[in-house]
């Protein structure tokens, strides 16, 4: 069964550094999403992406964040200058029909 995959599974970075989180959505899906989950808190929507552009973003998704689909398979989330509070689990999701399928997540730790 096709799955959403994410790399790396765990990323450790220093405050102020740029990170890129990678996702490979399910191949025939057209809608892509990023969510985050700070430890012990609920999953929060960050951004949705369709037809090579952002379709919706939350207030969390400020100028430090960007998304890109650089080729036909990858979907990336970039954080330009990480802060301590960016430490979280980041989930990518892709949608077919009316169900979103989530990847296994990338645990980002900012030191």
């Amino acid at each position, binding site marked *: 069964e096709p799955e959403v995959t994410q790399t790396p599974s765990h990323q450790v970075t220093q405050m102020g550094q740029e990170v890129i989180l990678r996702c490979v959505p399910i191949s025939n899906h057209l*809608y892509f*999403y990023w*969510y985050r*989950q700070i430890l012990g*808190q*609920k*999953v*929060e*929507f960050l951004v*949705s992406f*369709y037809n090579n552009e952002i*379709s*919706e973003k*939350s207030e969390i998704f400020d100028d430090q964040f960007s998304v890109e689909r650089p080729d036909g398979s990858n979907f990336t989330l970039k954080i330009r200058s990480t802060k301590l509070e960016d430490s979280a*689990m980041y*989930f990518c*999701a892709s*949608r077919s029909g*009316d*169900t*979103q*399928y*989530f*990847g*296994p*997540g990338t*645990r980002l730790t900012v030191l």
Partner: protein
Amino acid sequence: AQTVTQSQPEMSVQEAETVTLSCTYDTSESNYYLFWYKQPPSRQMILVIRQEAYKQQNATENRFSVNFQKAAKSFSLKISDSQLGDTAMYFCAFMKKNSGGYQKVTFGTGTKLQVIP
């Protein structure tokens, strides 16, 4: 805006017993979807079951079933014959349906379920 409320932060159940997790939501939308996702210690988000709001029949998926009460905006999950592998955090989630197709999922705060041997 939609909100999803899970009032049970933690629950436990004996193996082979039945447990029900509660969820209520608030929305002015008439057309939407509801989901239960499971997050085991590995933290991967796994879809357990989904319900379309316009369908009156409650969804079932093997040992998992829901009690969907649209008027009451209630969406509970029943797990029958609980197994040790059911130990996880369970999230209730809402997604509205619109013509644009840009639906985001709104999650509740989760219920941590422990299945006791």
